[in-house]
């Protein structure tokens, strides 16, 4: 996500009965410090019709954002539908497939089961934030390519975020242990053998 881009600017273009709600982009400020751009984006991610709206300040991939969020919005939908970070995938929306795995405060969590309003002060890292854009890949991302641990790629962001968690948790003592601790992430293409190899490889490098 880039702080220099309006996250959502979508004023109603006409007065038709179909006009879209205001999802008004409120503030963007950029402060360059030591060559690192720090942005504060304030986004109204809630429709005016929402029953309960809360303002939440959190960090996503290192950038602070403040969102006005519908209390029903999951972190997954916040990322995908409001912050334009579609790298995190919706597979079941019920906490059973792992495709939506992200890191919250350093732990792997299922973003579909995490309500965005809970995240005041949280530090969220998604697949888009795991490595700098265009820069060197995280060792596990590189290992996924090297081992061909993916096919359709849809579960891959969740597998990688979960795999990074698995490595950080030191659940990589054996292939069997990795299989057990990666079994919350479904892969219908059936890349499990290679996913385990990729996690093993990256665990040795991290």
């Amino acid at each position: 996500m880039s702080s220099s881009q309006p996250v959502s600017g979508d004023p109603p273009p006409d007065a038709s009965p179909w006009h879209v709600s205001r999802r008004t982009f409120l503030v963007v400020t950029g402060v360059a410090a030591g060559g690192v751009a720090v942005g504060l984006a304030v986004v109204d991610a809630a429709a005016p019709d929402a029953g309960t709206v809360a303002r939440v300040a959190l960090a996503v991939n290192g950038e602070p954002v403040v969102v006005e969020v519908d209390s029903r919005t999951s972190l997954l939908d916040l990322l995908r539908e409001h912050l334009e970070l579609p790298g995190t995938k919706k597979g079941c929306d019920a906490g059973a497939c792992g495709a939506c795995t992200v890191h919250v405060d350093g732990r792997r969590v299922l973003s579909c089961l995490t309500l965005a309003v809970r995240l005041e002060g949280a530090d969220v890292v998604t697949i888009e934030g795991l490595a700098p854009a265009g820069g060197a890949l995280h060792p596990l991302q590189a290992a996924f390519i090297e081992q061909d641990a993916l096919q359709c790629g849809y579960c891959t962001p969740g597998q990688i975020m979960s795999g990074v968690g698995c490595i950080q948790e030191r659940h990589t003592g054996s292939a069997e242990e990795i299989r057990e601790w990666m079994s919350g992430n479904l892969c219908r293409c059936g890349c499990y053998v290679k996913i385990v190899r990729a996690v093993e490889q990256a665990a040795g490098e991290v």
Partner: protein
Amino acid sequence: MTRSQSMQPQSAVGAPVARVDGRLKVTGSARYAADHGPADGIEGVVHAVLVEATIGRARITGVDTRAAEELPGVLAVFHHGNAPRLPYRDNPFPDSINPPGERLRAFQDDRVRFFGQPVAVVVATTPETARHGARLVEVRYAAERVGTDLAAGTPGGEPETYGRGDVEAGLRSAEVRLEMTYRTGRNHHNAMEPHAIIARWEGDRLTVWEKTQWVADPRNELAAAFGIPQESVRCLSTVVGGAFGNGGRTWVHSVIAALAAREVRRPVKLVMTRKQLYSGVGYRPAYEYAVRLGSDRSGRVTAMAHDVRGETSRYESHADDMALGRMLYTTPHVAQTVSLVPLDVNTPTWMRGPGWSTAAYALECSMDELAHELGIDPIELRLRNEPESDPATGSPFSTRRLRDCYAIGAREFGWDRRNPTPGATRDGDRLIGTGFAAGAYATERMNAQAYARLDADGRVVVQSATSDIGPGTATSMSQVAADASACRWTPCASTWATRCCRPPRSRRWPGRWRASARPCRTRATCCAPGRRPRGHRPGLTASRRRPGRVVVRDGWLSVGTDPGRGETYPQLMGRNNRSHLEVIGSYEPPEESGFSMYSYSAIFAEVAVDARLGLVRVRRMLGVFDAGRIINPTLADSQAHGGMIGGIGQALLEHTITDHRDGRIVNADFAGYLLPVSADVPDVRAIYVDGEDREADPIGVKGLGEIVIVGVAPAIANAVFHATGRRVRELPITPESLLG
């Protein structure tokens, strides 16, 4: 592996190169249908959520949308009472893969044909509001009696039949006769990406960002539904998050999204929920497969009767191809009937290894039962029934290296260390068994077309309207392109976009399609700036030589007799003042090749069955495949692992369960419908026997994606029998079926 007879060096094909879209996929940058948005120029998108029927068969008597419409943010609710009538032109095969029958239409009548059928759609400004609104829609029904049980259903229409010899006489005179009925549960594809579509109208022109295995199908079906020219529909499908067959057709939800978008005059995004996928996008139908088998004492199968019943919907007839039992063994007397039983269910569709994997379960378990009955090794029994030519047609096989598959597999798996007595091998509390099964899958060839362009900088771009559901199509296409143009294979910026146009080829679907009339847009690129070999002299005017004598290596063109003189593609084009060269090539398979063409598998599995709990775990599995030329062994391994792991699910876990009282699927989620997970998959290995198939197609490929699941379920089932001595004739094999 033998190479083609081309003079050109073949270096890219066969190399285990990394997939060109790997970086996109590991960084979250690959954009699946529902990922598109403002960055793709889609502004003002609104969200649609389907309302499903909560009854299995009924007439809708009323739809109360007031509560939903009063919800702030709800833009519209559409149902059969207020939706516009759509022209719905016929759209039969080959423009679609719609099966015979009358397809399900978007809110065009008051009929409920199955539990979960879309009966309304709520469009709102946010996903949360649309979901809330969908819950507020009240639909009233006049209920009718529902029938969803295959066992209790009556076949509709005449069965498909096949026969050779006199099967009844053959069975009567057989020294050994066996009769078994096998049952398979309904399976759902459950690709990780839910079906999703974004539909946007600009005047009478429709653009869809759609999940599809065949980009022409949404265009053709949406054009037919809305009565507009095919040219007015543009379908964009960049990457597909798995499909396994259920992305072949364009389902009714896509028409609903387009209908809603036209009415609200906004781009509409519709993402199906996991639950909706169970009644919305097809499945592998449940089957009953009865086998009567006659053999002599030496194991020569003389007669085999197959009587098959499969489920379909009441509005369409989906039939899988059950030809395996006709061609795998040399049996002189064969009879087959395949009946479809119409039920109050949504229409099934092809799912990985369609028909062939189901038939392999019945046929290969019955062969295992015969081997046990006769006291003959299961592999030896197959060898005694191995045909020299196709017993169904009399045609020679293009290539059939099944004997090699058996021999290599037996050696690598350690088959000879097996104690043939069932229930005789233990490891603590676990009963250990090994099983074997063979398989085949028809090699399908279709008309294909591709556009190739050589740019002045030496880059080759190849475009064709295929989609990549995971096999690595862009990668293998670029490897083929690199060798065809004798360019160095370099994964350049992987431009990868699939747009609507005629389909070039897919091995995934049977049948033939018409050739494309225009360049298609799936791209594979390879780079070859061309490099003059050290010490070589420039200056050959290669273009003046007879093309057949020009050899190109690493983008360096020379005459075969004088490799030192030559030039690069950029030099050649620069000399001729050309910015690029382009060509459209097409391929049309011969109507009658005179050969029978199949891929083959030999699957070996070892299972451990908990003696007290009945829990089956696969310990290791080996697949040996005769699939023709392997373009990329790394990608092939991924395909093969995936097929075999899918087979673990088919054998031991996957079963869609319907409550026949009301037609509701009771396990329409990942908590109740079990898929294999990492912990279910310890050790899977694939081996490919050498050899391209020159009859199959110009690149010698027979097809791998389907054959890799064919034979897996029976190999596991046979291993369970070997471990326990109990023959379970129903999939999936659950702990309860082994207890008591």
